[in-house]
């Protein structure tokens, strides 16, 4: 990471911070705002990723899908979900310059959840983000791919991580 400019690290950390704060507040429009118009989001198990199986838990491969993810969470499934509070803990592990203001960034993450009315706290999932960030008029995700070691989810997952 030594050749990466401090302001690049700062921008990527800031983008990640906006992202996890949006999710922990369940502000899905702020979540969407972290993505570039060419951005994609994937949530996939490490088992599938390692074995080359393409099935994901969430596969938003274009911006319209990201918009529909917001609709799914805030409108379509709002009343049937047993809602839960998340806390995302992240750790930047590497940044690589891909050229053209693009950077490959990796974070480790763990997400805790506290289910409303149950109130005990458990681990929702643990994994890594494999990101491609564009730094141009601010930073945005061209790709945020969450690969989770937690191959068996402890409950259904109502929101992205």
């Amino acid at each position: 990471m030594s050749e990466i400019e401090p302001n690049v690290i700062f921008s990527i950390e800031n983008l990640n911070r906006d992202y996890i704060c949006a999710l922990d507040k369940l502000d899905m429009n702020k979540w969407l705002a972290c993505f570039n118009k060419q951005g994609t989001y994937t949530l996939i198990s490490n088992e599938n990723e390692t074995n080359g199986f393409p099935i994901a838990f969430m596969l938003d491969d274009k911006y319209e899908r990201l918009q529909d993810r917001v609709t799914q969470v805030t409108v379509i499934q709002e009343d049937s979900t047993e809602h839960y509070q998340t806390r995302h803990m992240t750790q930047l592990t590497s940044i690589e310059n891909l050229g053209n203001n693009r950077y490959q960034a990796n974070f480790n993450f763990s997400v805790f959840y506290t289910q409303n009315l149950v109130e005990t706290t458990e681990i929702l999932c643990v994994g890594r983000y494999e990101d491609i960030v564009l730094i141009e008029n601010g930073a945005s995700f061209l790709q945020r791919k969450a690969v989770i070691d937690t191959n068996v989810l402890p409950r259904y997952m109502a929101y992205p991580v």
Partner: protein
Amino acid sequence: MSQTPDNRATLEWPAKYNEVPKEVFERADLWPIELEKIFYGEEWHPVVHQSEIPNIGDYKASDLGEIPIFAVRGEDNKIRIFQNSCTHRGTTLVTESLGNKTEFECPYHRWLFSPEGELVGCPNSREFTPDFDKKNFSLPTFRTEEFCGLYFITMSDTVAPLKEYLGEDFYEPLSRILGGDGRLKFAGYQKVHYDCNWKAYCDNDGYHAPLLHLAFKMLNWQGGKGVQNVTENGHLSFESELKIPDDITALEDASILDFKGTETSTGSIVQMQFPLTVYSKHMDMLNIRYAFPKGPKGIEVHYAYFTHEDDDDEMIAHRIRQSSNLLGPCGLISMEDASIFSRIDKGNKTPGMAIFQKGVKDEYQLDLQVGQNDESGNLPRWEHYRKLMGFKRAES
């Protein structure tokens, strides 16, 4: 809690066929009997589709009840299903859920098994019992049958052959979920734990679909004409036309709901095989839901998705996209099912009966003729369960 004279747990079943005692979902003492009478009894259980382990030496580990098992493709290209336990002292032979091995070695005393299950090596065997013979220490297997590439096992010597057990009304639609000819390619799993008794997981019905799943309403998606077939031994099979409106305004990208279809994939099919496997084909998604009870509380569900060998790249991409976003524990049209499982589980701690209404014409008679959106189709499976468990029905 009540017990029979031989100290076996029991409960009294109500006289009305549309009532199920809520305690049946909650009582931990029923689990050992369910293992013996259902999971180790006169039922067939799917374990693996051939496309999940396509190469020689590929294996998949899972469980039958509480018995660890694994399926492996041998050097002869045949798939066999074994107990996952060394024939010496019982150590498990595989610890990963999927993998590839040319031989299976127990780390404890280095006993070595071939992918065909034969014991091929055991150190210091000259010092074993005088009549020791490796041939007597092959890995125990199961009575196994294959249907469209899907392998089923049973611990029963007496249950009917698989197709007879499933019945034509069940296996014919199943063959279409399995691509018509079983020439599927495996695309991946979604695995999840649901916080409910296994019987709550598989008690979903035809009544709920248009009511629980708001996505259907929001997408202006009217259910097409269809049928529900039920069998006396508790299998259910739903089939309906797909009527997806041309103009879906609730979504920015309605292509996720495209139904491209093939000649073998008319409509929407959902099947529930007793005791707890679900097969489905909605739009272009081909799905098997293997399910594994974790004792009396909790169930792990492995949603397995497939493409077909004849698919072009566009169809593969479409199936992957649809499967990853619509079904499963995060899916646009199915996540609500998961929320119901745990809510049912909590709610069933209240006393009394769960009462089925939709489609019930006579509370004191079991009816195998049910409509597409009736919940009465679940009652034959409850009757089958009651009989297997040996619970007495009260006099009417």
